[in-house]
């Protein structure tokens, strides 16, 4: 392999990491928050798809993509509140409800999304941060969407807030030990509903990125399971918001590997390279299974019990 080809691949992976990771960051952060409160919401794929549709529709009608982003967030709150409330009923399994909510979110999005497949809505503009670079591919890779930066800021704030604020402590305590939370006079159901709604908000914004930035259009095949992968990334990131960013970037870069290798002429075995993100996730999951990872899981999670 020539140095030039290697540079092309590395730049493509950098670009891929930045372009593809944003929805993963938002969904993974949303899931982290929800799981920290002791619930699993597997339905975030539904939030992602509904968010994508709502963002596109609102951006189309109002001409303001940022209004679309906000609306996508609130569509996520709606699904999150629904999940949170249903799971608060006695003997309801959060995983089963999550799967139901996923189908529901996707179904609602497809139903109302029909008229928005054809029209073109205003997109979120990217910031050309690569102006200094002479290499056009590098310039392109550094076209960074503001949502990517927002996602990283939210991750830092969430990481700090979970560790250092009263709200963060309440969420963690509810997630780790329901009796302890009750002893403190905290209503765990209320905390979990709010945490699921907030997590839903973030996942909805992840969807807005898909339809308004990259790949940047609404259609029914838009997500192809990214919301589900992001939920898996949370375990991989061990419920740590900062590690969520890392996991998402790694996943995005691995996803860019397949097309990038073919573009420099390494075209044998592209099915294998296209599967790189999943293979990578499997490897890291296996490598990460130790006593530490088990301890990182919130104690109230139904899968941890």
């Amino acid at each position, binding site marked *: 392999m020539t140095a030039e080809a290697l540079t*092309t691949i590395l730049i493509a992976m950098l670009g891929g990491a930045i372009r593809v990771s944003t929805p993963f960051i938002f969904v993974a952060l949303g899931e982290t928050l929800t799981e920290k409160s002791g619930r699993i919401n597997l339905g975030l794929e539904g939030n992602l798809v509904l968010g994508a549709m709502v963002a596109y529709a609102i951006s189309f009608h109002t001409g303001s993509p940022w209004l679309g982003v906000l609306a996508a967030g609130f569509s996520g709150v709606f699904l999150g509140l629904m999940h949170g409330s249903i799971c608060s009923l006695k003997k309801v399994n959060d995983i089963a409800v999550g799967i139901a909510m996923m189908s529901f979110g996707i179904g609602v999005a497809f139903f109302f999304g029909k008229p928005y497949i054809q029209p073109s809505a205003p997109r979120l503009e990217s910031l050309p941060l690569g102006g200094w670079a002479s290499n056009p591919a590098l310039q392109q890779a550094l076209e960074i969407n503001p949502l990517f930066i927002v996602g990283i800021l939210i991750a830092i704030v969430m990481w700090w807030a979970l560790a250092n604020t009263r709200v963060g402590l309440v969420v963690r305590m509810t997630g780790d030990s329901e009796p302890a939370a009750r002893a403190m006079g905290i209503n765990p159901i209320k905390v979990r509903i709010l945490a699921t709604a907030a997590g839903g908000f973030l996942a909805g914004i992840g969807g807005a990125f898909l339809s308004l930035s990259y790949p940047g259009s609404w259609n029914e*095949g838009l997500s192809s399971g990214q919301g589900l992968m992001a939920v898996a990334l949370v375990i991989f990131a061990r419920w740590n918001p900062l590690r969520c960013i890392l996991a998402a970037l790694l996943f995005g870069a691995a996803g860019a590997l397949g097309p990038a290798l073919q573009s420099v002429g390494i*075209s044998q075995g592209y099915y294998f390279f296209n599967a790189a993100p999943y293979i990578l996730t499997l490897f890291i999951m296996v490598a990460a299974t130790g006593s530490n990872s088990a301890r990182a899981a919130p104690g109230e999670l139904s899968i941890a019990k």
Partner: protein
Amino acid sequence: MATKQISRRSILKTGAAGIAAMALPMPFIKAASAADGVVLGAVYVGPRDDFGWNQAHAVAMEILKSTDNVTVIEEENVPETDSVSKSMESMINLDGANLILGTSFGYFEPFMIDLANKYPDVQFRHAAPLWSEDKHPANLGSYFCYLNQAHYVDGVAAGLSTTTNKIGFVAAKPIPTVLSNINSVLLGARSVNPNVEVQVIFTGDWSLPVREAEAANALVDAGCDVLTCHVDGPKVVIETAEGRGVKSCGHNASQAALAPKGFITGAEYKWETIYSMYADMLAKGETLPNVVVGGYHNDMVKNTAYGAGATPEAIAAADAAIAGLKEGKPIYVGPLKDNQGNLVLDKTFDNYDPVLDGMNYLLEGVIGSIT
């Protein structure tokens, strides 16, 4: 309880009348559907406004809707599972469909074969060259358009539009139809510009928007300045090309509106030619042919109206290529080697030669691999 007894007894009493009454609506239904003329039921695997394969079929059905005595029933997003059988059976039993059109590859076996055996009075046609006389029922059949002819025209226009001599192709899977489109783009481009190479990236599936966008970006980064594709919904590829400031050629349906600056032309089906022929023959009570295939010579494919990306030279050359195809000028002028150096076509083949249907190679000049 009392009402139940009464109704049961009354049915018993008026048994003969009851049966007559039950039988009565039947001729009415028959009569009604006969008055409606021909009923065509079409089943699509994806949304019918996907800017691609499904839209191409839906546009054709839309044209039929305005025809007198033709009723069109459609169902979209039907997966290649038992759902197909259910959709088609409901079209037959509830809507009285005379002809069922299955537009996705996986509908054929076993679903449409089983249904054709179960409903011998209904005609079934499937949009891929899979039917064979000795294996399949006589009320089933295939229809297909050789879209690679329109891709050849794309190639001609693209060959005169590229300055880097590299055309990028985002492809879904390495099946013969896709490979034939890639090879035809190359041959079209080389017919006017011998230095052109076609670089292909396979995404691995029919609809993966994020990976399609990644592939389009990777091709532009690799120096391609015209992009085209064969995926179910070309929207993402065309929009990404436009966003990167390179030109593009479409696939399946018109994507001209998506790329107001760089769209050259695109390969489109004219399913309406086949569908109107079917409707026409059914209305006259004629037997439908089992296999219908075609291309430019019988008006079954077309190229999208030229966009802003087409230069006058490209338009002139593409128009000439279309005229040639209508006269039957061959695309595969042999001998031709594949990109591994093997001789794959030892002589010139006619555009409809069955040898070309089994294509499993990329020609010399295509950068890419099918495995």
